[in-house]
Structures are given as C-alpha cells and as structure tokens.
C-alpha cells in the first residue's frame, strides 16, 4: 500500500530504551566527561581522589549549571538570553550590598531576593521579546550591556569583599552534605525541577512546540506570548540564583563578575544537544555540557596542553557538536526520503 509509509515499531519498551540510549546525545557527552575525568585522575590522582579534588570537581560547575538550565529553557523556545552574565554580576553585587546595608539579614531571604531580582531582569527581556517582537539575540545583547552599565554605575569603584559578608554565607561555598557540596546540591535540585516540568507538564511541552514551529504554535492557539515571557523569567531567576552562588563561592564581587558566562551557558547547552533553533534538547544534556566545559578547563592544564589550545578545544567541541547534529539530521532526512521512494515504487 502506498498510504502507510510508517509502520508501528514492533520493538518492546526495553529495546526502545536501549536503542534510544545508544542514540542519546546526553550519554555520548557523559561518556566524554567520564573519560576526561579518568585521564586526568590517572595523570594526577588528586584530581578526583583528594577531598578537595572531589569537591572542586562538583562545586565549580554549579554556577554554569544553573545558567545552562535557564538558557536551555529559553533556547528551546527558539530564543536566546545573552544577558545572563550581566544578571549574575548585578545580582552578586546586590547580595553583597544587602549584607553590608542590612546586617543580620537571613541568608534564605537574601537568596530569595536574588532570585526575584533576576526574575525581574528576565521579565524585562521577556516583555521586549514577546511583545516587541524583536529578535531575542538583539534584545538580550542590548540588555546585557544595559545591566552591565547599571552595575558599573551602581558599584562605581566600590567592590564587595569577603569581609563584607557573613561567614555563614561564605561557608555555603565550601560546605558539603554527604560529601556533595551544598551549592551543587541546590543546583541539582533546580535541574530536577526544571527537567521534570519540561518533560511532564503541559507548559513545558508547549515550550518545545513553540520552538519547533512558532507560526504553527500561534495557529494552534498556544499562548505563545505568555510562554516565551515565562521562559525568560525562569532563565532570569536561575541567573539570579547563580549570582547568589557567585557571591558565596568567590567572596569578592567586582565589576567584571559574571562576564562571558552567557556565552559559556549557550555553549554548554549546544554541546549538550540543545538545538539552537529550538524545539529539541533537554536540560540534562545541557547540565552535562556545563560539567564538561568546566572540567575541560581544569583538565587540559593538568595534561600540559598550552593555553591557546585549551580555548581551541572548547571551540572545536562546539563546532563538532553542531556538525554532528547536522550530519545526523541529513542522514535521517535521506532515510525518510528513501523510505518514501521505496513505498512509492512498491506500489
């Protein structure tokens, strides 16, 4: 028959799982990450085995992890948020100022204020993109400079030092729970929450639909404007939380805080299999991508690779990831065309 081009798979749920896993980008990137850690550990056992090594391995990526989650939510809707680096810096400074101006303020309250502040900055992006119908690349490039400018104006030559912040807050940067650093734990909780929402809630799936074909989403009657707005707010809130982390982890906040983090977040998402044109990819992949990026930064010097090549490796990784996507999708397209041909000539 010519009309049945696709037959239902006769494979069991287990077969499907195995096949899916073999094709999954998340697992491929995870394997590279593990291999990298293994090589580094063989070269210098302290990288993994020492208590500091273990802790650094986990805690260093936590800031980028949060940003990569937020960036993924936005990229899935076929947008991008380049202002998150500036949001991190601005929020980190706000956190410091709060501790300076309101001594004794509870840490939880500060963290919440940080997230709310980030969410507000995300809302500005969202409003401009969703209502102004201006491409997100342009809008967030603009707000990236604006937020950075506000930061410079506000802070002046002032900077927040470790002494300005309570020791309980700074301890968060190093504290562990069941050998897992607290910051990493919080970031992982966020990862699970967002991952769950994107997979299992209606609005999460609608974000994918919007990114997959924005025009069809409007025709379909999905609340596109509201969803895009929401995606930017989530991204902003996570960037705000990342700013709180930044203050806790590094202790000092100067005007350069968070610079270039936005591009690393995009890179982490892309390496983790999030399609830059929206519609596909998961936060799990982006999270592994974030771990990989940060770990590479630390492993390559151990392997004695010169500075220049370290940057180039990261660049190669990004281009490799995109090229891989392209090759795979071309192959799939060819297979589908072939299948259609076969179905026709078989008629």
């Amino acid at each position, binding site marked *: 028959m010519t009309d049945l081009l*696709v037959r239902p798979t006769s494979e069991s749920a287990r077969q499907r799982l195995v096949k899916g896993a073999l094709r999954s980008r998340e697992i491929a990137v995870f394997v590279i990450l593990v291999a990298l850690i293994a090589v580094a550990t063989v070269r210098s056992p302290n990288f993994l085995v020492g208590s500091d090594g273990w802790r650094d391995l986990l805690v260093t990526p936590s800031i980028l992890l949060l940003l990569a989650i937020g960036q993924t939510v936005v990229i899935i809707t076929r947008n991008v948020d380049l202002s998150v680096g500036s949001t991190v810096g601005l929020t980190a400074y706000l956190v410091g100022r709060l501790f300076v101006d309101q001594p004794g303020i509870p840490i939880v309250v500060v963290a919440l204020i940080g997230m709310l502040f980030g969410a507000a900055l995300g809302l500005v992006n969202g409003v401009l993109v969703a209502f102004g119908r201006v491409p997100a690349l342009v809008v967030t490039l603009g707000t990236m400079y604006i937020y950075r400018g506000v930061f410079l104006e506000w802070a002046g030559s002032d900077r927040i030092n470790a002494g300005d912040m309570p020791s309980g807050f700074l301890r968060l940067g190093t504290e562990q729970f069941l050998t897992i650093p607290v910051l990493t734990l919080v970031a992982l909780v966020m990862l699970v929450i967002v991952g769950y929402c994107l997979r299992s809630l*209606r609005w999460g799936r609608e974000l*994918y*639909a919007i990114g*997959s074909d924005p025009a*069809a989403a409007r025709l379909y*009657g999905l609340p596109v404007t509201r969803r895009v707005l929401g995606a930017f707010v989530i991204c902003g809130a996570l960037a705000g939380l990342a700013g709180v982390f930044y203050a806790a982890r590094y202790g000092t906040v100067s005007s350069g805080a968070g610079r270039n983090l936005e591009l690393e977040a995009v890179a982490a998402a892309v390496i983790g299999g999030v399609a830059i044109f929206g519609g596909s990819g998961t936060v799990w992949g982006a999270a592994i991508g974030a771990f990989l990026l940060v770990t590479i930064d630390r492993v390559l010097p151990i392997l004695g690779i010169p500075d220049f090549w370290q940057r180039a490796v990261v660049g190669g990784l990004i281009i490799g990831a995109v090229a891989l996507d392209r090759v795979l999708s071309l192959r799939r*397209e060819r297979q589908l065309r*072939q299948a259609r041909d076969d179905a026709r000539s078989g008629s």
Partner: protein
Amino acid sequence: MAEAASGHPPILELSEVAKSFGPVLALRSGRLEVGPGSIHALVGENGAGKSTLVKVIAGVYRRDGGGFRFRGADVDFGSTGESKNAGIAVIYQEPTLFPDLSVTENIFMGRQPTRSGRRIDYPAMYAEAERIFGRLGVAIDPRRIADGLSIADQQIIEIAKAISLDATLLVMDEPTAALSSVEAERLFTIARALRDEGRAVVFISHRLEEVFGLCDTVTVMRDGAYVGTRAIAETSTDEVVSLMVGREVADLFPKAEAAIGDVVLEVDGLTAAGEFHDIGLTVRAGEIVGLAGLVGAGRSEIARAVFGVDGYDAGSVRMNGVPVPPRSPRASIRAGMALVPEDRRQQGLVIDQSVARNVSAAIRGRLTTLGLLLGRAENRVAAPWAGRLEVKTSALDMDASTMSGGNQQKVAIAKWLATEPKLLIIDEPTRGIDVGTKSEVHRLLSDLAGRGMAVLMISSELQEVLGMADRVYVVCEGRITAELGRDEATPDAVMHAATHVGGHLAGATHADEKVLA
C-alpha cells in the same frame, strides 16, 4: 436544501461576512450555512475568498462585519484557541505540525491527559493516539516524530487532532491538493464516517469530481462574495462551474498561435533520489509547454534542478544542444534560462526594495560603472520593461511589497526578461492573482512565446494548462506519466495521468470521466 430537509438547525451560520486587509478587500459578503451530519462543499476560483472565510471561522482573522453564529449562539473568536474550545477544528492547506515532537504530542498539545499533580500521562496519551489511528485505519507509530511524514500522513495527524478534540465542525481547506487518489479516497472514507456521527464537515476543493462524489451541498463563492448554494443532487458540474467562473472560460486564456521553432531545452533522464525519476522533456522556441500534476508531484523540484538551484543524481540538461552544468544557476542564466519561482515574495523578489532594483537585479553586474551601481542605471533598465508589462506602479522607486500580487508577478517576470532569456521557466504564474490580472499574465506569456521564446509553465490549475499550453507533460509522484498535445489534452486525460502511475488504478477512469465531462 439538505439541511432544511433534515429539520435540524444549522451548526454554522455565516452571513454578510466582510474582511479587508488595508485597502485590499478579501471578503465582501461571505455566506455559509452548514447543518449537522452534512458534508458541505465550498468552491470558487483562487482568490474567491474561501481561505479568508475559513480563517474567520477558525479565529485567525476577526471579521470586519457580518453575522457569525455557531451552534445557535453568536460568536466572535479572537484566537484559534477560542474556536477550538468551541468545537471547531480546521485543517489548513499546509499542515501545521511541530516537526520536533512526536505525532502523539502533536495531536494532544495543550490538552494532554494528566495524572495527579497535573503530570502528563504519557502511556494514556500513546494509548489514545493508537486508538484514534486504529479508528482511522492507519498504522503510524505514535512515538515517531512528525518530521519527515508524507503530506498525506501529516493530514491524517491533523484529522486525528480534530477527532481527539471531538469537534462539532471540521473544516478542511483543500486537503486533497497534494494527495494521490488512494490517499484522497482514504480521507473521504474518514470524512463520511465523521458525517455519519452527526458532525458537520466543510470541504474545500478545486476538484469538482471530489465535490460531487463526497458532498451533499455546495456553496459557490466568486470575487469575495457568496454566489449561491445548491444541493448536490439537484445540480450539475456545468452549473457549478458557470457559478464559479461567471464568464466563458475561453476568454481567460488568450493563447495566440505561434511559429514553433527548434528545440531550445532538452532534458534527458533527469533523476534525483526521492524527488523525481527519469524525467525527459523538450521545449521548442515559440512553444508553451505545460507541466501539470498535483501539488507535491515534484514539478517545482524538476524546475529547480533544471535551472541548477538543486543538484541531481543522473541525467542531462541541454540548451540549444549544449550541455548545461548541474548546480549552477549562473551557468544556466548564461545559457539563456530564466526561472520565475512559485513563491514570489520569498524567492522571486526582494520584496522590500524598489521596482527598479528588482527588475535590474539579475543583470546587476552589467550595469555597474567603475564598480558602482547607480540608481539611474537601474531606472534606465527598468523603465521600458515596466512599461511593456503594464506594471501599474506610480513610480519605479516604489517598494515591491506595496504592490498587488499580479503586479508583483509582472515585476518578477520583468526581472528575468531583462536578462533576455531564450527559455522562461515559470512556476505557478497566476497563484494568488485576481482573475482580471490573471489574463494579463497569460497574455504576456503568450506574447513572449509569439516572439520566439520557449516557455515551460508549471501550473496546478487545469484550465490554465489546457488553455495556455501547446503541449502538456503530466507529472505524478516524480515521474512523467503522460505527454499530451494540445488536441489530446482534455481535463480527463490530464487528471487521469496526474493521479495514476504507470496504468495503475485503471478501473477508476470510468468514474473520472463521468464527473469531469
């Protein structure tokens, strides 16, 4: 009328509906009344306002005036979501699926079944999708992504959406345009089943044989207005055609006799996997050759490959006996080819630039003075062409985007005529052009052929092909299934070849002849 006879109040009542876009009046007074348990045909020429009316029903557009009642209540939909919630499902000409998501998610997006905590119940969703597919008699893996589905299967997904929505009214806007006859028949079976459940179906099609085979009532529109409604049992194709056209068909297609010269284009054994196979055709000087077939049969792909926009796997293209290298539009232009693509706004014109700049675009290299392109030179080249084509534009520096479809098409043609081609390939020359301007485009093509140009015209409009072409090649599923001279090219012969590969389904001929005659 059928709905009056059945005694049920109509589900959908539209009266005096008007809609304009800026100065363009797309719909003057649309009227449509559809009863439950009925398949109602909406017919009319391109530009008659059918699609605009559909979009008003769907909530894509808000009407400027007129009455709109659904299930007995006045409604005014501000969004597609509202009409959907009210129980209206619309299948558009182009299926609107999310390519990255599974077919099941495409069906249930925004309405997924949930478990506690508003969590999407995937197993229930897949099971429901499988149930709907079973009911439709199709075997589609509910977990596969929508990307790469054939148009027929995409339409099945759209129908599955409508069924899962439990829609009271299903509107199908030219659903069969790109389907083979087997696929179309499957769609009709589904439509009849929906009708028998008491739902109302509005069916838009250009193929009158389908209308007469499937529907019980037909409403005709012309030039944005309601013309009349007839029960199918009490009317004939002749009556419907005369209502649609409102004038003699012959007036529309002024093909003048022209002296046929030597072979200009010679295509032999052209093949691109998955697109078309073993295409052989010739076009002579002074000849208009039609390339007929259904949407999606591969005609545009053939044209793009001949012109060198896309590559091909095997075969050859010759201009005046000289081979033209593949994948090089520049070489094709040098060899004397010109291609006016189907999608004017996207591919044919730089829509936000002036008429002069558009006309001179293809020969820009020749107009430069010391490497600079002067506006004066552009205007100098553009003026005679715009004059000859009667492009109605007050000034050459007017933006192409502000002109009507017909004038845009003339500018797109003028751009290529400026290269002085020997062969003009033109894809859907009159799509989206109003009836009056259509004949101007036709006269222009006929003129060009009369002056010795070879014209290869792709058209989905049967009347256009039959009226204009000296010879017709019919393409079906990527193969040429017939070559017909002007005398042999009857609607029957073309439609038959367009829906049958290599003599399959010969039994269906009889039915075709009856309704097309």
